[in-house]
């Protein structure tokens, strides 16, 4: 997309403005506060429906509809209109947007799909570079820079997706841990009922067959819930309305056992030891670190694969070296290892005890329900809830802290009123149900186990399924991260190479060895640059502000070029030149002119030298420069067409306003010849105040031109290139004639002449003066590419006078 015409009405300090860049580079020059950036805002708004400057930090109270229109005007009065050229369409198209409906771009429906990619890219903010952004690219910390580059490359969405996938993985992990915990609880319930410590299929089967035998059943060989009562017939009341007093007594005894001094002491000791070790770790920052390092190192050792690559940073190690390194590290952390292993051992012991308790408690709670003992049921359910909370703390690796002091835990392990509660339950059960027969207890044992086994089998399936889902979540996340690193590193490598190329082009022999690092660092982007072969550092560590500015420009151009190719040819540089010195600005001009052909730069600046250089180096054609000045609240900026002075002089001549024409010719010539002098390195009599008059500049420019032409002729003679010598002589003859005439007529642009009441300059008198100046201008500029003739200097030697396209070339080197 290129900008052909732009109209702005009542928008951000501009009342009415119409410019015609015609798809070529365009320059707005003017002091601070003259409204330059408002034009940039207008283009930004036209393409995105937003104003970038009015978003972000510190803009909370800034409102597009309220602060977008020019002061005293409303949103409906603010309109931006442009004629643009977009790829894939022969005809230019008109688009417009009003602050009244910022989200609505008005254009022909037939072109909407063609313009959509342009708008999509513009919404990524890839077309505007401001001074503030340069700082964000260069001097900011990695996180801020990362955000800036992420927004530009639209990497923010990659980070959002990564976070979503991390969340998915964690949720699936929690599901899996939940399923594992259920499995542990149900296993513990089975163990508790049977009276074994650990889940053992052989022992459970033995228990089943003893009970089957009492019921005249044959032994079974496979432990399956649906096989436990195979071929056994026993008539009884369903277990959900009946209590087996003997089994209840067993369960109650187990709970009573908790209260025994021996057991309480045992549990208390475990808790106390856990608490003390944890306290020791937490009270020493270094030991806390050692503990975390140990866990990580052990995990690293587990994840180590055959090629010996580090599982954390993917760095390749020689086979076996990393394994040895990790083992040595674990050896060094021996003290921490002892504590960690002891914590794990104590925790596992506690988990086992708690699971047993929960299993038993569940059975007793069923009995309270049958007996209708709501108060006792409530007490036991609160206890069950506390135990489950304690269990999850242990399973989540959050070892006991202050909340789990031994006293608290003692209460947690047995409510104060436990004995009374259990007595009530047993008495009530004895009152309501008679002592069971041996066969009844065997049947009830099988029934209880049948139910528990069903839950166990279901838990096994749940656990397997949830593990598979968790594994998929983990694979999805790790694959995404692997791809992210691959894509970003390739992208950053390309951008870095182009950045280095552009930067070296600007700084020439000063930075021939320059290199940089641009790498993804966590969620940020790390950017470091080399300083004269002395190693890489942050850009603001050793380089000057000017160098940092050029880095920002080069990095932005490399990024923008990578992203908007073929869609938005328009690149806006809003007052980006601050600390760059004049010679390097010239190089930046050359870079824009030669490295970005086909692009349209829209440049604003308050810097007159930069504005002149942009023209003298051929970045900006004279007709595409405007100057803003004298901004007022009523009218916005005054507009001076700096571009083609001949057009505006012709207008004055047409109106017979000779003093006005003379003033414009003088002012235009002063500006023109200051650029000529800069390009030719012409000697101009130094003035401390820097206010050079036309006479100073003209003499310097003409004298240098003559001098270099003389050198060129001498060089041609030394090469015996007589054809070139003749050509140079013709140039000399022509310029000599123009210089002589200008020396005769230049007094006519002297201001004193035109402010003299007695002057009687007529149109006929002044027109030839204008024509001579016009001829003079053309001597210093290439007729083909429009650039100023400039010296080509290599080290201390002046080698040639050239224009950018090479049409004008004078060799100055002797044979």
């Amino acid at each position: 997309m290129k900008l052909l015409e732009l109209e702005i009405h009542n928008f951000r300090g501009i009342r009415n403005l119409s410019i015609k860049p015609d798809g070529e580079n365009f320059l707005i020059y003017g002091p601070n506060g003259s409204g330059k950036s408002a034009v940039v805002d207008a283009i930004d708004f036209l393409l995105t429906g937003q104003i970038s400057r009015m978003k972000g930090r510190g803009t909370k109270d800034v409102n597009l509809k309220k602060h977008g229109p020019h002061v005293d005007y409303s949103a409906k009065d603010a309109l931006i209109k442009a004629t643009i050229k977009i790829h894939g369409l022969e005809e230019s198209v008109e688009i417009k947007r009003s602050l009244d409906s910022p989200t609505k771009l008005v254009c022909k429906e037939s072109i909407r799909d063609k313009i959509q990619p342009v708008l999509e890219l513009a919404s990524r903010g890839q077309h505007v570079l401001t001074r503030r952004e340069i700082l964000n690219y260069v001097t900011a910390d990695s996180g801020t820079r990362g955000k800036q580059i992420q927004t530009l490359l639209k990497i923010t969405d990659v980070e959002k997706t990564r976070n979503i996938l991390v969340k998915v993985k964690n949720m699936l992990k929690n599901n899996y841990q939940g399923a594992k915990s259920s499995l542990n609880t149900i296993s513990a319930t089975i163990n508790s009922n049977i009276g074994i410590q650990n889940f053992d299929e052989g022992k459970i089967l033995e228990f089943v067959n003893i009970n089957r035998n009492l019921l005249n059943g044959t032994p079974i060989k496979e432990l399956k819930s649906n096989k436990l009562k195979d071929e056994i017939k026993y008539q009884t009341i369903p277990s959900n309305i009946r209590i087996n007093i003997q089994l209840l007594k067993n369960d109650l005894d187990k709970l009573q056992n908790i209260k025994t001094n021996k057991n309480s002491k045992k549990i208390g000791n475990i808790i106390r030891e856990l608490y003390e070790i944890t306290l020791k770790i937490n009270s020493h920052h270094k030991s806390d670190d050692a503990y975390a390092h140990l866990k990580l190192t052990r995990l690293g050792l587990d994840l180590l694969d055959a090629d010996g690559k580090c599982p954390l940073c993917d760095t390749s190690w020689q086979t076996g070296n990393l394994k040895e390194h990790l083992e040595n590290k674990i050896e060094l952390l021996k003290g921490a290892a002892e504590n960690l292993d002891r914590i794990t051992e104590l925790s596992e012991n506690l988990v086992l005890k708690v699971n047993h308790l929960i299993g038993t408690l569940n059975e007793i709670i069923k009995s309270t329900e049958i007996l209708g003992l709501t108060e006792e049921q409530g007490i036991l359910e609160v206890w069950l809830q506390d135990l489950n909370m304690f269990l999850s703390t242990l399973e989540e690796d959050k070892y006991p802290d202050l909340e789990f002091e031994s006293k608290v835990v003692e209460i947690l392990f047995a409510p104060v009123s436990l004995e009374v509660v259990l007595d009530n339950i047993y008495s009530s059960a004895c009152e309501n149900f008679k002592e069971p027969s041996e066969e009844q207890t065997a049947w009830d044992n099988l029934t209880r186990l049948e139910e528990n086994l069903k839950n166990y089998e279901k838990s096994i399936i749940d656990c397997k399924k949830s593990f598979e889902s968790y594994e998929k979540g983990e694979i999805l996340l790790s694959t995404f991260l692997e791809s992210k690193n691959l894509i970003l590193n390739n992208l950053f490598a390309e951008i870095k190479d182009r950045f280095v190329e552009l930067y070296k082009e600007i700084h020439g022999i000063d930075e021939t060895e320059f290199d940089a690092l641009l790498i993804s660092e966590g969620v940020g982007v790390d950017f470091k640059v080399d300083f004269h072969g002395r190693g890489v550092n942050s850009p603001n560590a050793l380089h000057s502000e000017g160098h940092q500015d050029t880095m920002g420009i080069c990095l932005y151009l490399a990024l923008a070029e990578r992203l908007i190719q073929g869609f938005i040819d328009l690149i806006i540089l809003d007052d980006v030149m601050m600390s760059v010195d004049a010679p390097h600005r010239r190089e930046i001009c050359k870079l824009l002119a030669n490295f970005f052909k086909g692009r349209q730069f829209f440049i604003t600046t308050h810097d007159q030298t930069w504005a002149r250089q942009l023209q003298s180096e051929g970045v900006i054609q004279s007709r595409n420069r405007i100057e803003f000045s004298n901004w007022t609240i009523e009218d916005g900026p005054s507009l001076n067409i700096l571009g083609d002075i001949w057009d505006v002089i012709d207008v004055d001549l047409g109106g017979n306003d000779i003093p006005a024409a003379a003033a414009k010719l003088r002012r235009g010539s002063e500006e023109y010849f200051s650029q000529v002098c800069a390009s030719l390195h012409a000697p101009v009599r130094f003035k401390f105040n820097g206010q050079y008059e036309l006479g100073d500049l003209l003499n310097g420019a003409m004298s240098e031109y003559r001098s270099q032409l003389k050198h060129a002729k001498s060089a041609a003679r030394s090469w015996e290139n007589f054809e070139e010598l003749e050509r140079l002589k013709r140039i000399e003859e022509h310029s000599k004639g123009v210089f002589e005439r200008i020396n005769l007529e230049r007094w006519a642009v002297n201001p004193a002449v035109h402010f003299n009441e007695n002057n009687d300059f007529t149109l006929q008198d002044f027109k030839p003066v204008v024509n001579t100046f016009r001829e003079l201008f053309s001597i210093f500029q290439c007729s083909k590419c429009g650039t100023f003739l400039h010296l080509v200097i290599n080290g201390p030697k002046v080698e040639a006078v050239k224009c950018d396209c090479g049409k004008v070339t004078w060799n100055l080197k002797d044979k």
Partner: protein
Amino acid sequence: MGVNIIGKSLKVPKTVLEDVWLDTLSKLRDNPNFNSELVEKIESMTKVGLINSDDIIVLLKD
């Protein structure tokens, strides 16, 4: 990444996220834990903007 020219119409360059998903999905196709149907379902989710964690969880639990 880059400019895709399809016939005469131009498509907006892919975002980095689109590139990352393209590479991720191609790797998942070679992973035995992910069958082609699952990869296709994930792919269709990525086409409509940012993925939703709940939808992905349902998909992975299936």
